[in-house]
C-alpha cells in the first residue's frame, strides 16, 4: 500500500505521538520469582560442575586431578558472571513491561542490554499463548506475537492468566485479519 501523498502533507515531528510517553504495565511479580529461581538453579549446577574435580582430588583421592586444586579461579569467574546476570534479572525486571496504544504494542526489556520494540497491530499475523510445566504451576502465560518474516516477533513472557487473556483479546480485536 502506497502512502497517498495528498492525505499526508506536512508532518510536524514534535507533534507525533511519542512512544516513550506511555506508561508501561509490568508483568506478573511471580515471573520475577521464576526468573530468580532459574538463575539460582543454574548457579548451583554450575558451581557443582566447577568444584567437582577439586572435591574428587581433595576428598576422593584422585591424584590425576591435582591441577584443579586452584579452584578459586573458575569460581571467581563464575561469581562475576553470576552477579552480572543477577543484576540483569533483578534490575531488568523493573524495566520489563508492555504498553498498548490504539494502534501498536510496545515491549521493553533488559537493564544491561536494553531494548524497546514496537509492533503495529496491523502487521500482526497471529498470536499464541504458551505455557511450560513450571509456568503452568505458577499460573503464568507467555504471549507470542508473530509478524511476517519472523524478524519482528515479540514474546511477552510471564503474564498473569487474566492479563494474558485481556491482552490477547485486545490484540485480536485490533488486528485486521
Amino acid at each position, binding site marked *: 500500500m502506497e502512502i497517498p501523498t495528498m492525505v499526508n502533507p506536512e508532518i510536524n515531528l514534535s507533534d507525533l505521538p511519542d512512544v516513550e510517553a506511555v506508561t508501561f504495565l509490568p508483568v506478573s511479580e511471580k515471573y520475577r520469582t521464576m526468573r530468580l529461581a532459574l538463575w539460582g538453579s543454574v548457579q548451583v549446577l554450575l558451581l557443582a560442575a566447577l568444584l567437582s574435580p577439586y572435591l574428587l582430588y581433595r576428598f576422593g583421592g584422585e591424584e590425576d586431578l591435582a591441577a584443579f586444586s586452584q579452584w578459586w579461579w573458575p569460581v571467581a569467574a563464575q561469581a562475576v558472571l553470576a552477579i552480572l546476570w543477577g543484576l540483569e534479572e533483578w534490575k531488568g525486571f523493573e524495566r520489563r513491561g508492555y504498553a498498548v496504544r490504539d494502534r501498536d504494542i510496545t515491549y521493553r526489556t533488559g537493564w544491561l542490554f536494553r531494548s524497546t520494540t514496537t509492533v503495529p497491530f496491523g502487521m500482526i499475523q497471529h498470536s499464541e499463548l504458551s505455557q511450560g510445566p513450571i509456568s503452568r504451576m505458577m499460573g503464568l502465560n507467555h504471549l507470542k506475537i508473530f509478524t511476517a518474516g519472523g*524478524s519482528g516477533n515479540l514474546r511477552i513472557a510471564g503474564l498473569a492468566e487474566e492479563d494474558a487473556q485481556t491482552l490477547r483479546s485486545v490484540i485480536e480485536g485490533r488486528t485486521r485479519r
Partner: protein
Amino acid sequence: MNLDLAVPRRQHPLGVIILATKFSWHVAKAGWPALLGLSFGNIKWYHLLVVPAVFLVVGGFAFVYYLRFRFYVEADALIVERGIFQRERLQIPFERIQAVQLFQGPIQQLFGLTGLRVDTAGSSGNEVELVAVKLMEAEGLQQFLRSKMDGPREGESAQDVAGSSSPDTALPEADPLVSLGWADLLKVGFSQNHIRSAFIGLAVVMSLFQGVEEQVSAWIAGLPVMALAFAGLAATALILPSLVLMMFIGVATSVVSVVLKYWKLHSTLGEDSLSLQMGLLRRNVFEVPFQKIHLTEWKSNWLRRALGYETLRIQQAQAEGGRGGVRIFIPAMQAHHRSAMEERLYPDITAGEVVFDVVPARRLRWILLAFAASPALVVLSSPQGVNVLMGLLWLGLVFWTTGRRYSSLHMKVYRNAVVLERGWFWRTRTLIKLSQLQGVEWKRHALLERRRIGHIVFHTAAGAERFGYMDKGKALALRNFALNQVHSAHGRGAD
C-alpha cells in the same frame, strides 16, 4: 485464446518424464551412500537388475503422481490437489502469493514445455511447483495470478475471477531496464568475488597433486643425494605455476557460473512490477510486483564500481525463522538503471524530501579504531626495529580506513523510505519502505545509554536492518515518525 482456469486440469502428459527425472534425482541423492556401499561388495550381473527395477518403480510413481495432480483456480485462491498415499489439497490465497516464476530446465526446453512455481510467504514455507505446462497455458496462468496478487483493485469486483484472462488488458507499458550481452557477462564474471571460486580451484589443484606426490617421492628415493637439492628447488618453483593455475580455475569457475545463471538476462520495469528473465540451462522468468518487494539492496566492490556496475538484490517476505523468501540478484546495473528503478519503487526518494539525515555518533569512530588497532598494540608490546615499523604502518593504515568506513555510514529517511548506506570498499545501499515495516526496535546497552547513544532496528518481512550508534533524541523522533507512517498507510481510520 480463452483459458478456462476454473476447470481442474492435469499437467502436460510429458510431465511424467520430467517428474520421473526429478524423482530419480531425489532417489539418487538420498541413496548414493547405499550405492557406494554396494559397489565395494561382490557384484554379480543380476545385482545390476536393481537399476531397471528402481527405474520402473520411480516411473510408476511419477505416473500416478501425474494422474493425481490437479490444479485450478477458485474465487480467491489457487487450488492444487496432489499426493499419492496422502492426498493434500493446497489452497493458496492470491494475496499471499509473493511471486510467480516460470522456469525451463534442459528437459523442459527439449519438449517446449515450461514449469511454473508459485512462492508464498506462508509460515510453512511451502511453495507449489508445476513442472510441465504448455508455454501459453503457463503465461496465461502467470498473467492471471499476477493480476490477482495485489488484491481486488478499484472498479473490479471479486466476482469476475476465474476464466477469461485477456492478455491485452493485463499488459501495461514496460520500460526496458537492464539486458546483458556477452561483454557484460564477461565483465560480471571477472569482477565476481573470486575467493569462493578460488577455493573450488584449490580443491581441483589439490586433487590433481594427490597422485603426483606419491610418484615424486618414489622418484626421489631413486635419486643421488646431490640431485635432491635441485628437486627441492624445482618443487618450490612449482608453487608459482600452481598458484596461477588456481587463480585461473577460480576465475574460470566464476565466469562459467555467471554465464549459466545470467545468460541473456533481460529485464523490464512495468507500471507496478518488475519482470526478468535469465539463465542458460535453467531459464527463469520472474514477475515481481513492487508491492511484494520488501527490501532492495545495491552492492558493489571497487572493481564493479570501476566498471560502473552495481548488483541489485531484491528480497521478498521470508517465512518464519528467516527461511525461504524469494531473492533475486541482478548484476551489472548502471547508475541510470538504479535511478529508473528507484523512481518506480520509491517515488518519495525522487521527490527528495529528506525527513531525517543521520550519521552515527562520533564514538563509533573510536570503537572501530580501537578494534582495528588492537593487532598493532600486540606487535608494539615487544618493541624492536621491525615490530615498531610494522605496528606504526598498521596504525596508519587502520587510521585511514577507519575514517573512510566511519564516514561511509549514512542513513536518510524519506516520507516512505529508509536508505541505509554502508561500507567503503564493499559498498551497500539498502532500501526499505516505512509502510512495510513489521516493527521498530530501539536497543542499546547500559554504557551506551549513559552517552545517549543506541541502535535503531527496522524489522521488515525480509529480515532486520540496523543502523547503529545514533543519537537517542533523533532515534526516538525517527521511531515516532516511522510508526506514524506505518499507521497512516495501514491504519483502520485511514481507509
